[in-house]
């Protein structure tokens, strides 16, 4: 019951977080579907022939081109009022002079001199007003959004129908110069292009000067039909200085000169378009939807007169989009469709009877304008508006859940903690959701799952929070709410704050190890400060004999130092496997992230392959060595057998797969089919093996070796064969005791057989590490398929991951005291270090929180033909990306178990000094054997409370990360980098959180499963012995060193040998 309530409560907390994330996402992420239909000249837009049709002109499509050539000048962030004259002409107000006013004087001049040849419009830019989204909007004619669902995330290339593509299709030569973003959007579309990096926002001149250098030669060469310039100087000047700076005046004057030069060179058949892609706020930023950001200038000029006839309108977009998208309002859609059909009917009528229909034309124009406005409004409703309410509510929900985690994790540590109240909020949440759903269904409103979930979450959270707050506030002061030590709090705060800086998000691959290293050094320093690091002997020199260590030093100091040093080394080395986010020019990714197949040069490839296989074998050996050390490798249980035989098979399969994958191209043609088949089958086999291993582990998780024997176990009697007379006294000394012992045993055996009532004794080995053995085995089974999804050389990182977490666990265990009967706690520094390490490993496995950096090749492991977007491939890519989150979350309970596991080393250290051997011989059983993890079983209430607390603490540390990224994305939604840095970071954090929380629940469930299995195992044991009608006592042994010697010692006084370290102890059965 306790276990179920713990799991349910954790799942409920996870649900609260999910609801918050979903609510925030629905308010923040602007998504729309992408249409892949492309127009072609052969298919006219509507029924019937077009009255303004192309009439067979060359290069024309649906209609004849008015201008043969086009010069498009995009001046980034050219706000509408930048094109205004110097003095504002608002009557009644004193004229104000601003630096940016009147600098584009050529517009005014042309408008005055040639009013029929030029137009200046205010164009409205739709949010998000960031450059990439705006370019997409300008070229595709749709509204920009952040996530265009449907196409591939791997590149930013525009997949929808767009101007550039249509122009190239009709044989126009498109020449581009300027912002590099166009290269990402239209790779290879330009006949000639000069790209300049837009990365450095402080650099006002590089891009512009680069364009100016190529502008005149290109224009004069005449090898173009469409010429596109994208100037960035104004935008960068805005970011750096703001619009009210003299630099802006200079920049605009420069742009004015450029336009003037262009106008002078224009020929009669050319149209000049000068446009800003968006505006800027008074501080020079953009990205949001304020009036200043939305307004951009649009200037048209041609040496021939503009607009002799009215341009046509079509409604194809809405028709196609509404067929695909489901989230448009049906009513409004109908209204618009009716409006359009009416307008087109009027239009047709007008065409058929053209004489004297001025009024009819006016109505058609109004109708069409109404239609377009309506379409735009409806699309905006669906795609392009931040919902501040939802964002705020989502963030608040996340924050409240974090707070709840903190409160409950605090109260779980107290001894008088009840589990039953935990279930109440779950029930509340369920009923709330049911009632809401019922109400909504009854009133017939459309059911919004996000809102429903959020309402259920809030409904169940509030009473719980209120209760916890009341219970807390009456007892303790507010300052006790943050119980963690200050340095850890500081580190977590730094981590929290780092999410609000785009530089720190980009540099997180270096910042996370930095914090982790700091935490490790802090742990070591703290150990030293507490006097636990170095043995007191070293400190209390001859002169300073006063120092008394605060506690018994359970670990050798150099041991802890070595752990810390090794840990730092591992972190640094795994940092070498680093991938750059796209944005940084001065950063080169590690060459080791690419698969071996991409390497040329057989020798290096072979060496690397050998190294990778060596890493696999080492990983296997490390795990086996660990299990052997704690004796769990001796058990005859199926999971252990699987570890012994299945794991090497998995290693073999992985190695074979790598060999084939890296050399598939070199295979002889006869074997091609075979190789291809093996490439598909091997990964599946490895994954299948891993899955069956996990199933076995879940079925029989108790890896315990049981030996029952009647009476006292035999002492080991090995009679060495001996022939001939003894040659020396030493021989005699050796043989005589052996004979004596043998006789003694024989005698005792006979005695017991006659008595036949001797107590039955069962010796069970490895109970002390039964939980962590299951955990480690499960982690290994998980790690192998994940490893297969990565490139070969990342296996180094996986090995480092295991080593690293092992070292960290040991280091943490050195600082955690074991409170024997009382409540067990996992300190905050342990949980924080664990979470930091998960983040660090995310980066060191070659990931970055940006979409182009996702390892897409993971979707092709073990798949025969290239599939489309399926759930399986999404799962595989997700498993690749969030492998570290998953492993660390599942392994989280180890934080609780490890200190108990390390307990076995303490007494051994004390026992082994050579001088004490004689003493150990005499009274060996006086040393109390380490109970290790059985201490946890002894106090099931505290065990469950500790698991709950551990889960809540980990969720809290993860929760503040997701909260920070959500807050950063919402507060900085006007920031330049919001769609490039903060929004992807939020998405990655959100998915990482979901993976982690699920993994955490699985890990805790696994521990509970083991616990249940151990209990039933005990029960069976007791039952079977009670049935035999014998008084039974149980011996269980902790560490495995004795297991290798095959026998525990029950009656050590009979034995002449010193006890092997950490062997046996009596475990009282309480049936």
């Amino acid at each position, binding site marked *: 019951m306790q276990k179920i309530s713990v799991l349910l409560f954790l799942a409920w907390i996870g649900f609260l977080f999910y609801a918050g994330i979903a609510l925030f996402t629905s308010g923040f992420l602007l998504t729309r579907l992408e249409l892949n239909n492309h127009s072609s000249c052969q298919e006219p837009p509507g029924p019937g022939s077009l009255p303004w049709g192309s009439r067979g002109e060359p290069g024309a499509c649906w209609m004849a081109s008015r201008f043969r050539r086009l010069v498009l000048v995009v001046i980034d962030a050219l706000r509408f009022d930048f094109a205004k004259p110097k003095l504002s002409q608002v009557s009644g107000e004193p004229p104000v002079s601003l630096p940016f006013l009147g600098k584009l004087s050529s517009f005014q001049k042309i408008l005055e001199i040639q009013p029929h040849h030029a137009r200046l419009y205010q164009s409205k830019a739709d949010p998000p007003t960031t450059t990439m989204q705006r370019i997409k909007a300008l070229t595709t004619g749709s509204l920009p959004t952040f996530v265009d669902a449907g196409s591939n995330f791997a590149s930013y290339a525009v997949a929808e129908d767009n101007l550039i593509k249509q122009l190239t299709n009709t044989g126009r030569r498109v020449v581009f110069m300027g912002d590099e973003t166009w290269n990402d959007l239209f790779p290879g579309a330009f006949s000639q292009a000069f790209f300049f990096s837009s990365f450095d926002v402080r650099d006002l001149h590089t891009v512009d000067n680069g364009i100016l250098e190529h502008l005149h030669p290109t224009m004069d060469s005449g090898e173009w039909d469409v010429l596109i310039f994208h100037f960035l100087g104004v935008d960068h000047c805005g970011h750096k200085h703001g619009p009210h700076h003299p630099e802006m005046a200079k920049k605009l004057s420069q742009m004015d000169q450029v336009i003037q030069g262009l106008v002078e060179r224009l020929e009669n058949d050319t149209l000049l378009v000068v446009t800003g892609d968006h505006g800027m706020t008074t501080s020079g930023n953009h990205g949001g939807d304020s009036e200043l950001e939305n307004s951009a200038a649009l200037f048209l000029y041609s040496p021939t007169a503009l607009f002799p006839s009215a341009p046509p309108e079509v409604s194809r977009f809405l028709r196609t989009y509404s067929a695909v998208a489901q989230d448009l309002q049906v009513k409004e859609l109908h209204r618009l469709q009716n409006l359009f059909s009416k307008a087109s009917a009027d239009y047709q009528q007008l065409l058929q009877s053209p004489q004297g229909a001025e009024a009819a034309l006016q109505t058609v124009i109004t109708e069409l304008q109404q239609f377009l406005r309506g379409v735009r409004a409806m699309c905006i409703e669906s795609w392009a508006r931040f919902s501040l309410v939802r964002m705020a509510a989502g963030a608040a929900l996340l924050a409240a859940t974090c707070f709840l985690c903190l409160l409950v994790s605090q109260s779980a540590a107290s001894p008088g903690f009840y589990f039953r109240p935990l279930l109440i909020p779950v029930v509340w949440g369920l009923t709330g959701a049911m009632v809401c759903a019922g109400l909504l269904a009854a009133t017939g409103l459309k059911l919004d799952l996000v809102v429903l979930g959020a309402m259920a979450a809030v409904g169940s959270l509030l009473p719980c929070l209120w209760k916890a707050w009341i219970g807390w506030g009456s007892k303790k002061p507010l300052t006790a709410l943050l119980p963690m030590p200050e340095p850890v709090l500081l580190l977590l705060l730094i981590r929290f704050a780092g999410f609000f*800086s785009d530089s720190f998000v*980009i540099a997180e691959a270096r910042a996370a190890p*930095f914090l982790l290293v700091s935490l490790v*050094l802090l742990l070591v320093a703290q150990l*030293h400060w507490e006097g636990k690091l*170095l043995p007191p002997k070293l*400190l209390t020199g001859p002169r300073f004999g006063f*120092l008394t260590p605060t506690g018994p030093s359970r670990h050798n100091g150099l041991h802890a130092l070595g752990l810390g040093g090794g840990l730092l080394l591992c972190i640094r080395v795994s940092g070498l496997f680093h991938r750059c986010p796209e944005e940084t020019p001065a950063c080169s990714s590690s060459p080791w992230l690419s698969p071996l197949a991409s390497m040329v040069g057989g020798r290096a490839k072979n060496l690397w392959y050998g190294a990778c296989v060596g890493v696999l074998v080492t990983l296997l050996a490390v795990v086996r060595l660990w299990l052997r050390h704690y004796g769990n490798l001796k058990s005859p249980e199926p999971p252990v057998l699987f570890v012994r035989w299945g794991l090497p098979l998995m290693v073999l399969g992985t190695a074979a797969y790598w060999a084939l994958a890296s050399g598939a191209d070199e295979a002889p043609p006869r074997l091609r089919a075979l190789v291809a088949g093996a490439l598909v089958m091997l990964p599946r086999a490895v994954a299948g093996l891993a899955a069956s291993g996990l199933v076995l582990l879940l079925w029989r998780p108790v890896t315990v070796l049981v030996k029952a024997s009647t009476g006292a176990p035999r002492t080991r009697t090995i009679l060495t064969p001996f022939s001939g007379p003894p040659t020396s006294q030493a021989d005699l000394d050796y043989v005589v005791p052996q004979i004596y012992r043998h006789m003694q045993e024989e005698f005792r055996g006979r005695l017991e057989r006659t008595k036949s009532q001797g107590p039955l004794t069962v010796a069970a080995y490895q109970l002390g590490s039964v939980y962590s053995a299951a955990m480690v085995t499960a982690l290994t089974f998980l790690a192998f398929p994940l490893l297969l999804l990565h490139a070969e050389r990342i296996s180094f990182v996986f090995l480092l991951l295991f080593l690293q977490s092992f070292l960290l666990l040991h280091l943490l265990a050195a600082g955690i005291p074991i409170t024997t009967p009382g409540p067990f706690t996992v300190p905050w520094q342990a949980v924080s270090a664990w979470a930091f390490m998960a983040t660090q490993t995310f980066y060191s496995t070659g990931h970055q929180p940006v979409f182009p950096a996702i390892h897409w090749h993971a979707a092709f492991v073990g798949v025969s033909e290239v599939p489309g977007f399926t759930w399986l491939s999404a799962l595989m890519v997700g498993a690749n990306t969030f492998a570290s989150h998953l492993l660390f979350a599942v392994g989280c309970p180890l934080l609780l178990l490890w200190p108990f596991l390390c307990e076995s080393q303490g007494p051994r250290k004390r026992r082994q000094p050579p001088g004490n051997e004689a003493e150990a011989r005499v009274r060996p059983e006086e040393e109390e054997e380490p109970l290790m993890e059985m201490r946890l079983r002894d106090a099931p209430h505290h065990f469950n409370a500790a698991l709950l607390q551990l889960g809540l603490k980990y969720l809290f540390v993860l929760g503040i990360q997701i909260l920070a990224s959500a807050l950063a994305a919402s507060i900085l939604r006007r920031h330049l980098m919001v769609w490039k840095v903060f929004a992807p970071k939020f998405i990655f954090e959100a998915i990482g959180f979901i993976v982690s929380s699920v993994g955490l629940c699985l890990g805790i469930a696994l521990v509970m499963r083991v616990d249940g299995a151990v209990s039933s195992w005990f029960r069976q044991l007791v039952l079977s012995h009670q049935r035999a009608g014998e008084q039974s006592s149980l011996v269980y042994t902790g560490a495995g060193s004795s297991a290798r010697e095959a026998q525990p010692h029950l009656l050590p006084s009979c034995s002449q040998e010193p006890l092997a370290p950490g062997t046996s102890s009596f475990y009282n059965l309480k049936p």
Partner: protein
Amino acid sequence: MKDTDIKRLLYAHLLCIFSIILSIFIPSFFLENFSILETHLTWLCICSVFVTAVNLILYLVVKSNVSSKRSSLSYKVTRFLKCCIYLLMSCFSFHVIFVLYGAPLIELVLETFLLAVILSTFTTVPCLCLLGPNFKAWLRVFSRNGVTSIWENSLQITTISSFIGTWLGAFPIPLDWGRPWQEWPISCTLGATFGYVAGLVISPLWIYWNRKKLTYKSN
């Protein structure tokens, strides 16, 4: 513990601060184009030499009468050599720690090493002056209840604040402000210097305010 002790401590610390200020201004009289940011490595060397010199002078002035009982030349020479070895060792170990923290391994070795040198100047040199090349004594001072005098207490404070300053100095590095002082290792050396100066200022004040509470066991 008397107020005169604290006063002496304060004067000694002021002298150290003064030496750092001198190291900023004096070289500009002799060297052309000297500035902290542009000729940073030169300044590092000079600052390190100045601070070491002041520490040595303070040591000779304050401690000469105390440790006069063992005055044989060979003892002094071995002690001095030992001190040098300790200093070198600390420089190298700091270098290793910086690399483990994420400093580049091969590029900018000199810069990283000079950061290690300046940090050693702020931490190891005072330790050597006050405690001698006695590693056990160092460990004792930097553990709970280990200090035995206000000098050791102030040593603890200045050393820890130098470390914290260096640590904090690493934070501006990833920011995209494009300032010259954000380059490795300038911000860290500046952080170390500020931390050291802060420690020098704070420790006498802290000791003064807590003089009632502080009791040293074998003073």
